[in-house]
C-alpha cells in the first residue's frame, strides 16, 4: 500500500480535504446509509491531522513515539475511513464497503483487534466515552516518560453526556498536558441546533472553570487549524481544548449548517449535485457514481 507523503501547504491540504469530501459523498452514495453532515464538516481538521500534524505511520503503528488519535463521535466514521485510506492505512477501494456485511468499515468504528479498520485504536459509537480513554492513554504514556501526544475528537452535542465532564475533571486534576481535545462545534445535533436541544454556551467559560486551557479556531481555515493545533501541543501544565467552529455539511450547499443532514446519506441524485460543487482533484475518485443507484 502506498503512503501518501505529508502535505505542507494549506493549498495542498485543502485539495486533499476536498478529495476526502468527494470520497465521503461517494461512500455514502454507494452504501445509501450513514452520516453526511459531521464527516463533511470535519474533513479539513482530519486532513490537517493525518497529512501534517500527527506523528503516525501506517506501516509502523508500534513506533514508540507516535501520536494517538481518538474519535469519540463514532458516527462521523466516514471522514476517518476516507482519511485513513488516503493516508495509506488501507486500499482506497475498501471505501466501497462502508457499513456492508463482512467488512471492516463498521457503521461506528470497531477496534482493529475485533474486525475494525486499521488505524482505529478503540471502538466508539455510544457517545461520551472517548475523552476518558484519551485521558487514560495520556496518563499511561506519561507514567512511562514517553513524549507521545494524544488527540481526541469530540462532538459539541456529545458534551451533553455527563461522562465527558467527569473526564474533563480527571484531566485537569492530573494536569494531563500531553492531550489535546478538539470539539467539533458545528452547533448541530440530530434533533435540532444544540442550543435548542440542551444549551452548551458559554462553552469556553465552562472549560476554563474546569481548569482547562481553551483555544478557538476556524475549523475550515487550514492555516488556522495548523497553527492552533501546534499551539495546543506546545501548551504545558493544563489540558487544552480547541473549540473548532465548523459547519455541518461543509462544502455541499444544500447540506451546510443544516442539522437535518446529521444522520442521513445523499440520494444518488443529490450525490451528483454535491460532487458538482466539489471540484475534482489530482488524486482522483475511487468510484464513479452512475445516474442510477447501483445494486
Amino acid at each position, binding site marked *: 500500500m502506498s503512503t501518501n507523503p505529508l502535505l505542507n501547504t494549506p493549498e495542498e491540504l485543502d485539495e486533499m480535504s476536498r478529495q476526502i469530501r468527494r470520497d465521503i459523498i461517494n461512500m455514502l452514495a454507494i452504501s445509501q446509509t450513514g452520516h453526511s453532515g459531521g464527516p463533511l464538516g470535519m474533513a479539513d481538521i482530519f486532513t490537517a491531522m493525518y497529512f501534517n500534524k500527527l506523528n503516525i505511520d501506517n506501516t509502523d503503528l508500534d513506533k514508540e513515539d507516535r501520536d494517538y488519535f481518538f474519535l469519540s463521535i463514532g458516527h462521523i466514521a466516514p471522514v476517518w475511513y476516507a482519511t485513513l485510506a488516503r493516508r495509506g492505512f488501507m486500499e482506497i477501494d475498501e471505501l466501497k464497503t462502508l457499513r456492508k456485511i463482512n467488512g471492516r468499515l463498521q457503521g461506528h468504528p470497531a477496534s482493529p483487534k475485533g474486525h475494525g479498520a486499521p488505524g482505529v485504536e478503540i471502538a466508539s*459509537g455510544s457517545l461520551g*466515552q*472517548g475523552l476518558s480513554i484519551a*485521558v487514560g492513554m495520556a496518563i499511561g504514556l506519561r507514567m512511562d516518560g514517553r513524549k507521545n501526544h494524544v488527540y481526541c475528537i469530540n462532538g459539541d452535542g456529545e458534551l451533553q453526556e455527563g461522562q465527558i465532564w467527569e473526564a474533563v475533571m480527571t484531566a485537569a486534576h492530573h494536569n494531563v498536558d500531553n492531550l489535546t481535545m478538539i470539539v467539533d462545534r458545528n452547533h448541530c445535533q440530530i434533533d435540532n441546533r444544540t442550543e435548542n436541544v440542551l444549551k452548551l454556551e458559554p462553552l469556553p467559560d465552562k472549560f476554563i472553570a474546569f481548569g482547562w486551557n481553551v483555544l478557538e479556531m476556524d475549523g475550515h481555515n487550514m492555516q488556522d487549524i495548523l497553527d492552533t493545533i501546534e499551539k495546543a501541543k506546545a501548551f504545558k501544565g493544563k489540558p487544552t481544548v480547541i473549540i473548532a467552529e465548523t459547519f455541518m455539511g461543509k462544502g455541499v450547499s444544500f447540506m451546510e449548517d443544516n442539522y437535518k443532514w446529521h444522520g442521513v446519506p445523499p440520494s444518488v441524485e443529490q450525490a451528483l449535485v454535491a460532487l458538482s460543487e466539489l471540484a475534482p482533484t489530482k488524486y482522483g475518485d475511487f468510484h464513479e457514481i452512475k445516474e442510477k443507484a447501483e445494486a
Partner: protein
Amino acid sequence: MYNIEKPELKETRQGFADALVELGKELPELVVLGGDVTGSVKTNLFRDAYPDRFISVGIAEQDMIGTAAGLALAGKIPVASTYGEFATGRPFDQIRQSVAYAEMNVKICASHCGITVGPDGATHQSFEDVGIMRILPNMTVLTPCDYNETYNAVKTAIKSKGPFYVRFYREKSPNFTDIKKEFKIGKADTLIEGNDVTLLASGLLVWEAIVASEMLKKDGVSARVVNVNTIKPIDKETIIKCAQETDLIITCEDHQWQCGLFGAVAEVVSLYHPVKMDYIAIDDTFGESGIIFSELMSKYKIDRTAIYNKVKSHLKK
C-alpha cells in the same frame, strides 16, 4: 475435613488487596484506579505501596472504566475497583463498548457485592452484577468464595489477558480453600462428593452449601458440593457430569436467580442433560438493611437452613 464449628474468618476484599500489593512488586505495568471508596475496597493499600501507579478519578465510575481502557491501550494492566453495583450497573455501557467490545485488558474488581453490604440496604446490594457481566462477549466472570480463593482469582485475572470481572465481599467470611491452589479459570471445584443431589454454589454460598451438606449427611442424604468459581466461561463438563450422576441440581448464590449462577447452569443442563433443578438465590426482589448479614441471608432464604430445607422438600416428593 472442614472446621464447620469454628472456621477461620477473613475478608475477601483483603484477599484482593493483598494480591494487588503482592503483584505490584513483579508487575510494573499494574496500575489501580480509585473511585473514592479506596478505604472500603482496600485499594488504599496499593496506593500507599505504589503511589505513582495509583490514579484517583473521584466518584465517577463511567470515567473510571474509560480511563482504565485508555491505560490498557498504553500497555498498562489497569484494575478498576469500587462497590459491585457501581462497578457494573452505573458504567454498563462503558464496560460494554470500551472494555468488552474493544477487548481491553481491564480488570474490574468489585467489593461489597451481594448481601454482605447488609446495613447499607438495597441501593448498595448488587444482586444483578454477575448477570449483566456474564452476558457480555469477551468478559470473564470470577466469583471466588473466600479470602484465599479471592487472592488467587485476582492474581490469575491480572496475569491473564482480556476483560475480567471479579466479585467479592465486604464482611469476614469462612476461609477454607487452599491458598496454594492455583485458580483455574472455568474449572469448577468439587469440594464434597455425593450421589443424591448436587449443590452447585458460588461465592459466599459455597460455605453455606458445605455446612448444609454436613447437615444432610446426618439425615443420610449424600449432597455433592461444587464450587463454581467461574461463571463465565462456565464449566460445562463438570455440570454435565453432575447432571448425569445426580438426579437433582440445586444452585446456591447471593444474586438474582434468573441471570446469575442458576441461569448459567440451567443453560448447560437444559442443552446437554436435562435433570430437575432448583435454586437458592435472591428471588426477583430487592434487598433491605440488616445489621448482621446472616440475618438477611436467613430472611431471604439463602443460607444453610434454606439449602437443607430445599433439598429435603425435593427428596420427600
